[in-house]
């Protein structure tokens, strides 16, 4: 039964284009003063959860696994901590999927951890939705949502250069996110639903 589940899991990974075991390497947490702390927590999860970080945050190349399949199985809670490079953009990639429903959920966000700050990544996954929240918990009494972050456009198929997302001007996007009032959602995320622009001479 155990082997069947593992085989099923690996087949699902191959089918969904999620983090494949082939190109995701273990993470070597940086040390020193130019680092930020990252705690990762979840409530009891349903299905499987992977949280990866890229060497190349801009083009989402060379993923490393922050949480692993050995630790994150159905019914468990995540409670892990690590460090990140400080004062430079980092891209986090959350993959969750359910065995029973064969549903996947993928979120990729870029943010810029500040050196000596502590962050909390909260993972929530259910049958119908998943969410990756980011808080600055440097002051544990007053956790502050990280505003300077934005969603990445995930490629359905990894490109020839190993890029998992559409490259973006990180500093420009982070600045835009910091100035935006609320949402990290872009009009690109809604493009299939957007009202078509009226052409010249066309009635609205």
């Amino acid at each position, binding site marked *: 039964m155990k082997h069947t589940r593992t085989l099923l899991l690996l087949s699902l990974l191959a089918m969904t284009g999620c983090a494949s075991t082939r190109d995701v390497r273990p993470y070597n947490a940086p040390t020193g003063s130019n680092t930020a702390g990252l705690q990762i927590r979840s409530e009891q999860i349903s299905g499987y959860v992977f949280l990866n970080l890229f060497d190349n945050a801009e083009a989402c190349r060379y993923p490393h696994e922050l949480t692993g399949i050995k630790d994150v199985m159905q019914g468990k809670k995540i409670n892990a901590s690590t460090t990140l490079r400080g004062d430079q953009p980092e891209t986090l990639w959350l993959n969750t999927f359910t065995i029973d429903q064969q549903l996947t959920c993928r979120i990729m966000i870029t943010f810029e951890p500040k050196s000596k700050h502590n962050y909390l990544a909260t993972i929530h996954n259910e049958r119908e939705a998943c969410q990756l929240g980011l808080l600055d918990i440097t002051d544990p009494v007053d956790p502050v*949502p990280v505003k300077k972050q934005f969603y990445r456009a995930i490629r359905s198929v990894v490109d020839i250069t190993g890029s998992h997302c559409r490259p973006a001007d990180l500093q420009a996007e982070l600045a835009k996110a910091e100035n935006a*009032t*609320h949402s990290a959602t872009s009009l690109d*995320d809604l493009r*299939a*639903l957007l009202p078509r622009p009226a052409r010249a001479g066309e009635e609205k």
Partner: protein
Amino acid sequence: MRAALFGTLLLCLPGVVSAASSEQLFPKIAPSVWLLRTADQAGVPVGSASAVVTAPRELITNCHALARATTVVLVKGKQRFAARLEAADVERDLCLLAVDDSSFNAPAIDIADSDRLTVGQRVFTVGNPAALEITLADGLLSRLVEDKQNVLEAIQTSAPISPGSSGGGLFDDTGRLIGITSSTYWPGVAQNLNFAIPVNWLKEVRARSAKQLAEYYSSSSSKR
């Protein structure tokens, strides 16, 4: 003198709003809050959230609830209505949906003035947490989050908000909409850190959407 006073009272009465019990509130609010399901081009579910009817055949929700979707369907019991995106103010995470089907006759909710809120007042959330249809919960208005210009930009509440509650309503104790429940942080250190977008921002959605869409299409066409 008494007649004058009585006349004044009568004039004031229609404006008096009294607190209702949660049992009274739910039937008042629930018909205006809908479960929203999104799917991609292949019909695979992308997510579920909530939406509140703010005008005939118009609903407000969070834009993040619509991200990466191709279709949007509103659900209540056995009823299903297709919705389309009418306006998107992504900077404030407010998206306006329209229903073209004229048989959609869900009542528009009463709307309060979110500039007249008080920390400590009792509030209610109605939404669809974890895709459970229409759930009522209560709490307190914990903090009014203001920007550098002291303009209200978020309402912090202890009333529970879960994934699926996004786009649902935060209501005062008379059942009037005061905010759109949008985000939460959990677990452990961040209990009861829930946020709603002030309802007064609804008035600006169309104008802000038109501006953002014009910029978006102009930058898209210049990239081609």
